[in-house]
């Protein structure tokens, strides 16, 4: 077991009860308990209400029957009640005189707090040395032996049924809570364990990535749940990061390579210079050529810094309304002499009066200059480089630079816009290799896209057509 594994398994055990799944389970268990308590409460409330209503009814009904008995019969019935009441409707019955003294029956003395009333009353009976219990009483006046209503009939019914009911429901609730909670907890632990197992795999993958294995990805299965989706997102992020890192590494290598060549030349030159001692003119020449090579290094660095500036700055302070047509005329004016010396005809070929666009004039001039510069470089004499611009439906502007040169192979078209790309055909042509990446940085700033096609596919000189599509004004 490696140290990482040990750390992971420790973390694994300690964290089992801290997983989101387990916490969710606990919350769920609490909810179950609360739900059961509520359920049993309701059941018990219903049942005890029913029982109380029933005892009240029973007491009233018994009393109604007994009131109509003759006094002697009543006294007899009360005295014999415990023997005749086989259904145990009543738990106690007695006759009292008006001064609350017992005449007959099994209620030994007048219950404390009992009043003579047609309504039933709930009273607590507390026999000495026993736990108090609740009784329901009914006390009504009845006729005595002398014909006056001078006796009181007291009927009592114990609420033990209700109490028993409460005891039973409580017990049932408690009995069922234990297995339910235990089951929920077990389920929670199982689920957490599973989630933690997946997390553990991911932890291990992340540790491997952090150790430098950038090709590693988080494990993903077929389940499309939250964790899975998160892992897929993280993997996509890792793909992107890996791609960017590769790009940076490539750029770094390219910079090193592009600077290495001229620097090596400078070094060689200066070494030779140190051997020259008596020829000031040769010395001067060598130093100047060395300075020229250093100049090239500078231009590579400057171009890189500019790309960075344009890409990071996202500055649009230089944006204003301009006329693309005017820019075309300007760039032709600037490049015509050099095109002429290269045997290339450079011209603007559309008839549109003006193409208004919101953009940065200096940066767009740079785009045009780079494209035209490239077009002239890669077009052998006699050839033509034609510029055009226009405005499509919806106001979206476009700009086109078409040449009759060596063209760009289809699989290279995307790569040429990247940093330092040099097609094999262009190895011998001087340049920083950054012109087109500068172009794409500027175009991104303008929200424009570029596509490259061949003018005459299949031809020995297929030519390249760069078309830049600017976004319609509303979306800029």
């Amino acid at each position: 077991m490696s140290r990482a594994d040990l750390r992971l398994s420790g973390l694994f055990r300690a964290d089992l009860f801290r997983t989101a799944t387990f916490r969710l389970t606990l919350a769920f268990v609490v909810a179950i308990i609360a739900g059961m308590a509520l359920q049993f409460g309701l059941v018990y409330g219903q049942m005890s209400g029913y029982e109380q209503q029933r005892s009240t009814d029973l007491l009233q009904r018994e009393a109604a029957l007994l009131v109509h008995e003759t006094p002697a019969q009543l006294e007899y019935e009360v005295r014999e009640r415990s023997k005749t009441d086989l259904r145990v409707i009543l738990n106690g019955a007695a006759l009292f005189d008006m001064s609350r003294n017992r005449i007959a029956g099994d209620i030994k003395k007048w219950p404390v707090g009992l009043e003579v009333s047609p309504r039933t009353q709930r009273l607590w009976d507390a026999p000495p040395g026993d736990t108090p219990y609740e009784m329901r009483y009914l006390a009504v006046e009845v006729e005595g032996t002398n014909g006056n209503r001078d006796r009181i009939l007291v009927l009592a019914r114990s609420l033990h049924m209700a109490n028993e009911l409460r005891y039973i429901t409580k017990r049932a609730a408690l009995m069922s809570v234990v297995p339910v909670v235990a089951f929920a907890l077990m389920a929670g632990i199982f689920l957490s364990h599973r989630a933690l197992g997946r997390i553990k795999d991911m932890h291990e993958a992340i540790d491997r990535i952090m150790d430098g294995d950038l090709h590693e990805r988080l494990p993903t299965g077929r389940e499309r749940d939250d964790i899975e989706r998160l892992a897929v997102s993280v993997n996509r992020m890792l793909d992107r990061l890996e791609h960017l890192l590769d790009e940076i590494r490539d750029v770094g290598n390219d910079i090193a390579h592009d600077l290495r060549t001229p620097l090596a030349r400078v070094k060689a030159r200066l070494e030779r210079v140190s051997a020259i001692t008596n020829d000031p003119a040769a010395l001067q020449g060598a130093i100047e050529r060395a300075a020229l090579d250093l100049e090239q290094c500078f231009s590579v660095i400057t171009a890189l810094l500019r790309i960075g500036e344009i890409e990071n700055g996202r500055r649009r302070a230089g944006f204003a309304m301009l006329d693309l047509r005017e820019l075309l005329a300007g760039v032709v004016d600037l490049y015509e002499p050099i095109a002429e010396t290269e045997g290339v005809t450079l011209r603007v070929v559309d008839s549109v009066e003006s193409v208004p666009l919101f953009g940065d004039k200096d940066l767009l001039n740079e785009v045009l200059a780079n494209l035209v510069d490239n077009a002239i470089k890669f077009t052998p004499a006699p050839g033509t480089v034609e510029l055009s611009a226009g405005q499509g439906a919806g106001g979206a502007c476009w700009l086109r630079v078409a040449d009759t040169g060596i063209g760009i192979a289809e699989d290279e078209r995307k790569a040429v816009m990247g940093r330092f790309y040099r097609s094999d055909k262009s190895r011998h042509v001087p340049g920083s290799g950054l012109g087109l990446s500068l172009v794409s940085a500027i175009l991104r700033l303008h929200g424009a896209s570029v596509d490259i096609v061949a003018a005459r596919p299949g031809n020995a000189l297929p030519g390249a057509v760069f078309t830049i599509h600017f976004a319609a004004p509303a979306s800029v």
Partner: protein
Amino acid sequence: MSMTSAHESGAPERLPEPSPRLLLIEDDDSIAAEVAEELTTRGYDVTRAATGVEGLDHACAGQFDLMIVDRMLPELDGLTVIESVRAQRINIPVLVLSALSAVDDRVSGLKAGGDDYLTKPFAMEELAARLEALLRRPTDSRVTMLRVGPLEMDLIERRVFRNGQEIDLLPREFRLLEYMMRRPDTVLTRTMLLEDVWNYRFVPQTNLVDVHIGKLRRKIDVPGEPLLIHSIRGAGFSLRVPG
């Protein structure tokens, strides 16, 4: 390039006497020292200031012919210094130096009252040429006729003559020559020409300016007559009447 080298001349000529007094406000000690040394050998009387406040004090107290101001300065930034100097009605030319090259920075530098803008790192030749150009203000734009030695330019008729012989120029060649004739005996760098004649603010990958100058030179400098357009090695070009 054999043709170009035939035209190349040596170091730029000395500045007019007495030495122009230059105030250099720059906080980076190594750059300031290097610039000061270079400019002193080129005939400037250089005073150095390392902070914005110090620079502003010097500018308001002393009589300077020229100022170089770095944009980023401790205490008081470069643009504020320039604005304060301009508020004092001191109208000497100001060259702004900056590590930032973005267009809006250049624009704000010129808006604050700077006359020219140079991005670090820069070549000493470029700096020297720009200072020289700032010192020798171009010919008044109201004149209608420019004359440099045997060259004559009629700005209204848009015609050019050498020794009375008309030279047929394309519009862009006319613009280039006009710019040079307004600044005779001044070293003009490729960047200056690209910025001022064509309004382009980037360094092209091709020797564009050389091609333009070459075309113009073929029309202006006819064989058998003294050269007027000179290449200044490592710096640029200059329109100069020999002797």
